[in-house]
């Protein structure tokens, strides 16, 4: 990769990609909050933000400014270092995970191949899963460090929830890995040319999406922050920009979960029909994640929160066996066809 453009050219491209990703992620997170408020408002027959800028489109900007100037309060008896570290982890790992998501197919210019993901590794999927799982540390540490019972309960719930759902996510993804025979995100997408994996693995897609909701702490699985029981859960004691980091991380995680689902099941940047391929892949990718993101918001404002024990039951007794079954069936079919 380095050979074709020289070392400095390579560094320049990496930095450029990093900056673009950072800007995209920050904007996406800000406008996810806007979308969430707007969609929820329309579902509840309200108007939603409509005062700042045309259609309230500058509302996220105003929110950011407000968060910057908020007083930064912190509880007594907190673990100072961890209290500071936890939100940083939340923001950082969310952005890290985004680095390995291919938003477009590789572009070849002369002898140089431009990959659209920042770090193109052949185990990209594994990297993303590792990063998203790290997110739980921020929640758990934040809950622990704040010296507040609500935060602690939120953190504990989050840890328990993650253990139950991480498995389901892994098993759901396994089917796709068997089909594509690769952990490379780009190859997984390329394998889907003609037939998206959602048609081969519909069950896995639903399992992944449901488990993804739980991973992203979204309703109906938002037990770590269940506002009616726990104040705001793990970020009860956080204010100002520290809170903003958690907030940002939650929305970036949503984007990541939808990105993974798009890449693994909905053909990533591929157009739905071959004749539509004149539209750039990035657009298809954005359209697909927007649809999934909308579904997430839509679910949030439709379904009530699960009870804690039912959540656990659902994870271990429904999602996990279904995931296992999916792997076995996929494996058997593949083996039979090969034989």
């Amino acid at each position, binding site marked *: 990769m380095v050979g074709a453009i020289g070392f400095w050219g390579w560094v320049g491209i990496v930095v450029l990609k990093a900056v673009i990703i950072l800007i995209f992620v920050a904007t996406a997170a800000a406008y996810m909050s806007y979308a969430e408020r707007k969609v929820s408002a329309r579902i509840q027959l*309200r*108007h939603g933000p409509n005062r700042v800028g045309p259609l309230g489109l500058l509302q996220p900007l105003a929110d950011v400014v407000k968060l910057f100037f908020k007083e930064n309060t912190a509880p007594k008896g907190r673990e100072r270092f961890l209290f500071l570290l936890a939100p940083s982890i939340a923001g950082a790992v969310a952005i890290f995970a985004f680095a390995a998501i291919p938003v477009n197919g590789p572009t070849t210019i002369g002898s140089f191949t431009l990959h659209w993901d920042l770090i193109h590794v052949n185990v990209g999927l594994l990297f993303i899963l590792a990063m998203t799982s790290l997110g739980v540390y921020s929640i758990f540490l934040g809950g622990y460090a704040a010296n507040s019972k609500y935060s602690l309960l939120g953190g504990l719930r989050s840890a328990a929830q993650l253990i139950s759902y991480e498995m389901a996510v892994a098993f759901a993804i396994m089917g796709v890995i068997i089909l594509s025979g690769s952990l490379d995100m780009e190859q997984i997408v390329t394998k889907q040319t003609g037939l998206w994996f959602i048609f081969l693995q519909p069950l896995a897609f639903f399992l992944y999406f449901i488990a993804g909701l739980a991973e992203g702490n979204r309703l109906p699985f938002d037990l770590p922050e269940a506002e009616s029981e726990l104040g705001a859960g793990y970020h009860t004691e956080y204010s100002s920009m520290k809170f903003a980091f958690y907030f940002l991380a939650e929305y970036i995680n949503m984007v990541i979960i939808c990105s993974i689902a798009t890449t693994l099941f909905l053909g990533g940047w591929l157009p739905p029909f071959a004749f539509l391929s004149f539209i750039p892949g990035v657009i298809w990718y954005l359209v697909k994640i927007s649809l999934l993101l909308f579904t997430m918001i839509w679910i949030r404002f*439709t*379904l009530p929160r699960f009870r804690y024990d039912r959540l656990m039951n659902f994870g271990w007794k429904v999602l996990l066996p279904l995931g296992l079954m999916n792997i076995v069936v996929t494996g058997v079919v593949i083996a039979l066809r090969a034989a």
Partner: protein
Amino acid sequence: MLKEIAQGMAFTLRQMFRKPITLNYPEEQKPTFPRHRGRHMLHRYDNGLERCIGCELCAGACPVGCIYVLPAENDPEHPVSPGERYAARYEINLMRCIYCGYCAEACPTEAITLGPRYDLADYRREHTVVTKDELLESWPSFTTGGAKPSVLGAGADQRGHEKLESGVDPVKAWDAFEESHIHPDEATPGHGGLEVTPPTVKRTGSGEGESR
């Protein structure tokens, strides 16, 4: 369970395409019922004369004593009202008023009624004492003369509040405001020495409510 979830999702999706019920409050206001007892208004006859004859019955009937009427003799050449007297000053302390409507019932000439207007909050306490300028219908009136009644009530156009400088002694400022605006000796049937302010409150939405 899946069926119920699908039903719920379909319902929320349908809701999204309905028109929001919420009104954008200051710009859009909900029309009141015709008999809503909101802020008062002082009416005129068709010929522009004020109905109020300064008899102070309303002030007497008021259970909380929040009406102040200063009667004055009519100039026979240029009468303000058909009677012998008219109200040179007419003030209602809205902070104290309980919107019982006794004043309207006591009035012999139906000069004062309670209108549909309800956005009465103000940043300055002294502005909550409404004066005759603000209460009186402008001329030509809304309620007579064929003009369509404003759903916001006769008082809607006549706030008459001037922006006072901040840092001014409220009492002095209020006195100065009154002095500059009320000239009992110059009062004519048109408007107690005041310019007529045309209606400025923008109104959107349906207007089922009517002012009387």
